[in-house]
């Protein structure tokens, strides 16, 4: 992933955000910052409070408490100046059923002070093949591409993507990922939510793992793997041919032991591997810990 220029003021700042619906505390003190030009992911299971958080930032929901700043604005008042600089892809939202993607992209362009070229947006979103088809005849993947196009046509500085690929087949997901990477290459700041680990890993510069309305860990996907748990996993086949797996903080010592023993025996070490925990391991570990904490509360 390309390192991106980061300016001093963050594009998004969230401090101790709380949001309750009646007795349900959907968000219970979330903190994070998204730098300008960064692709930031909120990763967590369904019901973790990802969408609530994003919808507070988008201006759809008032917050219960906390500080929130989006491009220097408080999104709570939905200032028009902010809406002109932000593109939103909602988790699911309908559109005029009797219009074509081209008509809609052109219409949406008229909402913004300095829109992108309609053709360019259609190309970028991959809508060329269906630009003249009524939206009610579009496939799920094509509809999602239209969502992207409508969010992009205003040439926003910041794009919110709420579960951009949920329910996609693998090919459609790859296509959506390419579009998101193209956004990043254009220098846009992206905040996306996902419950797919591979998606977070593939797209995000940094990720916040969210569960039950709290942030469990924040960091680059690769760092999260190492930082949250400093263990290495070493696996090999023993003399009986069994696959053995051991976790250690000091793989050097263990490897020295293993290789010396193997040399002494005059045999090889079949299937030897050393790996760091993947984002998935960290995610499962953290979310399981959160479950235990919750149960003990």
């Amino acid at each position, binding site marked *: 992933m390309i390192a991106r220029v980061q300016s001093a003021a963050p594009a998004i700042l969230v401090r101790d955000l709380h949001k309750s619906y009646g007795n349900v505390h959907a968000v219970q003190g979330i903190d994070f910052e998204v730098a300008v030009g960064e692709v930031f992911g909120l990763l967590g299971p369904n019901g973790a409070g990802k969408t609530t958080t994003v919808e507070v930032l988008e201006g759809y929901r008032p917050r219960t408490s906390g500080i929130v700043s989006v491009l220097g604005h408080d999104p709570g008042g939905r200032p028009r100046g902010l*809406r002109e600089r932000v593109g939103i892809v909602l988790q699911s939202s309908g559109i005029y*059923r009797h219009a074509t993607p081209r008509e809609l992209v052109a219409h949406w362009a008229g909402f913004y002070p300095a829109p992108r070229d309609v053709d360019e947006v259609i190309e970028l979103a991959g809508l060329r093949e269906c630009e003249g088809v*009524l939206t009610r005849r579009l496939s799920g993947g094509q509809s999602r591409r239209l969502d992207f196009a409508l969010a992009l046509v205003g040439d926003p500085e910041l794009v919110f993507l709420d579960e951009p690929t949920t329910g996609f087949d693998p090919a459609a997901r790859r296509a959506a990922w390419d579009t998101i990477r193209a956004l990043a290459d254009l220098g846009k700041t992206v905040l996306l939510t996902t419950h797919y680990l591979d998606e977070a890993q593939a797209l995000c510069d940094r990720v916040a793992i969210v569960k039950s309305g709290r942030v469990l860990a924040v960091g680059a996907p690769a760092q999260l793997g190492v930082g949250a748990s400093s263990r290495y996993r070493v696996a090999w086949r023993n003399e009986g041919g069994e696959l053995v797996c051991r976790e250690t903080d000091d793989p050097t010592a263990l490897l020295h032991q293993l290789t010396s023993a193997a040399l002494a025996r005059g045999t090889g070490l079949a299937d030897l591997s050393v790996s760091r925990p993947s984002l998935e391991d960290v995610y499962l570990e953290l979310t399981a810990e959160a479950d235990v904490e919750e149960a003990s509360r």
Partner: protein
Amino acid sequence: MTAALALTWRQYRLERKMFWRNPSAAFFNFVLPLLFLALFGAIFAGSQEDLDIIVPGIAGMSIMTTTFVALAMNVVFLREQGVLKRLRGTPLPSGNYLAALAGHAVTNTAIQLMIVIAAGALLFNVGLPQDWVMLVTFVAAGVICLASLGVALSHAIPNFDSAPAYVNAIFLPVIIVSGVFYDAENAPAFLRDIAQALPLTHLIDGLSAALVTGAPFADHLDDLAVVLIWAALGIVLAVRGFSWEARRG
């Protein structure tokens, strides 16, 4: 100002275009009242007294279908589909959007009324409107009243599947008791009392005076007052309950 008008105008044109591309919506909004006019016109042919009642009656019904019925259904649909929520995330100001939606409904009202009035003059011997000022005043009051009540009703409708049931449960009894198809004076007393409390009866009374009888405007100020009281109630309910997205869960 001009930029705001241009934005509303663009949105209005999109709404018009979408309306004509959806044949079933166009049918319910347009053809149904005209079909009723044709059928009752045929049934009452030869009885000028009845024709004089059906023409302003259908005019009142047209205002109700193009505003109350259309907006209640439309807003529920747009809300449930998430179109309202999506638009709310764009820089398009809510006021411009709602003005475009209202303008779209009013255009349908105007077209319908022109057809009904023309049919009254050419086919049913009712003549041209007697008092244009009164006609425009009552139509405007009726549109504001029934449009806002339609939007207010949309807040009470849980989802689009049940929208026709909710809308018809109100629309059908109201057009029957309010004297669209017969002289409301001939209805039994209890129905008359109910009808007197509803705005459509008074709207039709005013339209009847403006279109057919030529009774002085001053005699129908109480009718106008009832329509405006309902309009005030409708506006308060429409604004207070307004939601840009479907309820959760």
